[in-house]
């Protein structure tokens, strides 16, 4: 029996319970969803999107993988414990807020850097974006923690 070498080895248990069609589609949908999540994250400041929405879409990606493959597979996709994602997200968001304190300004005061790129001119990078990234990580970590742990209880 041949197996597509590009696919990760499915769990023995999962192979039997899940449909091949779902598993394969899930494999292709995962990067698509993650990419889409990043896209929503990056442009959220200027169009619908942002850390929450991106985090939720990324969580949906994890859920797809979980349903299509297995709980262990979903954990492998994240690579780190989702609770670490939460912690890092919180720390990032706090750090984004603390920046202002060092210059004697109130907590959460935004700080912006204007980066000039040779081709495309000026780009605004600021602590709110860092903050949004923290939000993203927390949302992703939370939803993943919940879904993966719940699903693990079922098997």
């Amino acid at each position, binding site marked *: 029996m041949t197996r597509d070498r590009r696919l990760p080895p499915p769990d023995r248990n999962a192979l039997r319970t899940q449909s091949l069609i779902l598993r394969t589609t899930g494999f292709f949908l995962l990067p698509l969803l993650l990419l889409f999540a990043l896209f929503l994250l990056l442009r959220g400041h200027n*169009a*619908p999107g942002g850390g*929450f929405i991106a985090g939720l879409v990324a969580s949906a990606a994890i859920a797809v993988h979980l349903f299509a493959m297995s709980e262990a597979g979903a954990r492998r996709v994240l690579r780190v414990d989702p609770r670490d994602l939460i912690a890092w997200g919180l720390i990032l968001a706090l750090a984004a807020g603390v920046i202002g304190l060092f210059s004697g300004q109130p907590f959460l005061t935004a700080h912006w850097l204007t980066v000039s790129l040779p081709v495309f001119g000026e780009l605004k990078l600021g602590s709110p974006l860092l903050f949004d990234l923290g939000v993203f990580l927390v*949302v992703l970590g*939370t939803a993943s923690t*919940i879904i993966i742990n*719940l699903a693990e209880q079922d098997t």
Partner: protein
Amino acid sequence: MTSLMALVVGVLYAAAIYMMLRRSIVKLVIGLVLLSNAANLLIFTAAGLHRDAPPLVPDDAQVPAGLVADPLAQALILTAIVIGFGVLAFAVVLIRRAYEVVEADDMNQMRDTDT
């Protein structure tokens, strides 16, 4: 439309409360979901409904042209939705664990702690 929305919100509250009064904890959770949605729609309606005016600033402008929907209310609701999600996640797992230790989906069998 605000009148209709006010009625809809009322229905959602009524349904949510009806569900929370049931003995099944699963229904209780469904009630919580409805309640959260009801509160969000209440804020949405109370802040005023605006057709075709998303709070986005066009690429070529400093401020949106004309009237836009209240972005603050939307931000509040977004926060409330996400908080509601977190709380709901907790509640959902709680009822599952409660079911596991009580071995019943019946609120009336959960009276031991109240004397």
